[in-house]
């Protein structure tokens, strides 16, 4: 202990204290502060970067999931639309068919009615023509046969025989 105290130099102690404090002050101001601040800033930025990357990843995942849902929805909708379209088509076709059938039937009916009417008209005309013809014949007969009664009689009976048409 005594040897230790003997070795203790007050001058060295003074200089060491003085120089160390100066070094401490200078380093604190010009080295440790900027170094620690930079290190902390960098660590902060790395942490933030990692966090934002994680967030982006999460967002990406969310987006993908959303896309999946959207895709599924779109597919379902498409199927729905296709189905509806098919149904509409079928309905339209059947409706058209029905309508056509109906229309046809109506037309046939109308044609039938028209045919009937035409026929009636033709028959009527024929009747009237026959009547006229008969009258003409009758006239002619009358003109030619009028001279003799026998002949007249013969003609009339013959005509009557032939005229039994209807």
């Amino acid at each position, binding site marked *: 202990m005594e040897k230790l105290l003997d070795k203790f130099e007050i*001058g060295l102690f003074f200089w060491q204290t003085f120089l160390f404090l100066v070094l401490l002050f200078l380093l604190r101001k010009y080295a440790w*502060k900027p170094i620690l601040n930079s*290190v902390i800033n960098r660590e902060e930025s790395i942490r933030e970067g990692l966090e934002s990357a994680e967030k982006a990843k999460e967002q990406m995942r969310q987006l993908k999931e959303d896309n999946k849902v959207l895709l599924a929805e779109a597919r379902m909708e498409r199927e729905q639309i296709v189905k509806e379209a098919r149904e509409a088509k079928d309905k339209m076709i059947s409706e058209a068919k029905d309508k056509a059938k109906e229309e046809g039937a109506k037309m046939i009916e109308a044609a039938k009615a028209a045919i009937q009417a035409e026929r009636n008209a033709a028959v009527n005309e024929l009747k009237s023509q026959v009547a006229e013809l008969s009258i003409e014949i009758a006239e002619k007969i009358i003109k030619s046969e009028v001279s003799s009664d026998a002949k007249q009689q013969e003609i009339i009976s013959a005509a009557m025989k032939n005229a039994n048409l209807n």
Partner: protein
Amino acid sequence: MTGKKILFSLFFALFIVPFSAIAAESSHSNDSTVSEDNTKSEIKAYINHHLEDSYDFSIWHAAGLEFPLPIILIDEGLHVFSSSKFHHGETVAESNGKYYKIHNNKIYRTDAEGTITMGEYYHPTQVKPLNFSITKNVASIIIFGLIIFLLFRSFAKSYKKGPIPNKIGRFLEPLVIFVRDEIAIPNIGKKHYRKFMGYLLTVFFFIWFLNLGGMTPFGIGVTNNIAVTFCLAIITFIITTFSGNKNYWGHIFWMPGVPVPMKIILAPIELLGIFIKPFALMIRLFANMTAGHVVMMSLIGLLYVFTNWFARGAFLGLTLFLSIIELLVAFLQAYIFTMLTALYFGGAVAEHDDHH
């Protein structure tokens, strides 16, 4: 020069130069017929010389690579003169009408002839002026302080260019983060550590660099000097004491959670502990570095004691091995000092009763 190159040259210097230095030192006596005892005492003197401070900066004594340093004495006035006046302690130096002589590495006021009268226990009775000389250790502290400051300043500046530091910074930054994450935060806590970071980092790098400096062949053993470790320990003590909160003092004077008689017994023990803790810090660093140097120097010295080449080879290997261990110790002691300092700071600012 890159950090790698610097490190490599440091290693090189570390292993090669001490041998050449000691070889040169002992060569002048080795040419004549020297007895083994002579070598041994020479080695002992060499080790002591290496451990002690000196008044001139000698890099390689034999090659004349020496620089005188200023002597500053306060003895009824200020005396400033070059240490070359002492001629390595062999002559008396005169300044402003007063005469000084170096005896046992201390400066005493003497007369013109330089007579030193011995008192009890071989302590000179002469007046010992207040010695504020820039000794080799002080010069080393200045040099290393400058190196540390310039290194970290350039490192800090390089952050202005971007978030990645320069080459020196890439080596030093992990150490700064190591001090923060492994020493400061676990011991002090996230809430308070910021205000102690400056001191912890400074003390860590100061001790580490000076420990490494002590391993260079220039023999700058600053951290194996009690005055230096005392200074560091007392700063730790002052900061701990002044940052101590109510809880800290409560634990010292009135330990919570123990019966009253125990409180009374514990108070003086705890009070003593305040002083023992930094005292242990001081002794630990001093003793570790001194022991390391003594062992290293002794092993190098043994190379000259043995004439057997096999033994010399073995000691050379051992010296190399121990040099590497000492490199580790240099770091370890800086770490331990900083760690314990942080632990004491942590105790001083702790807020809860959760540490027992």
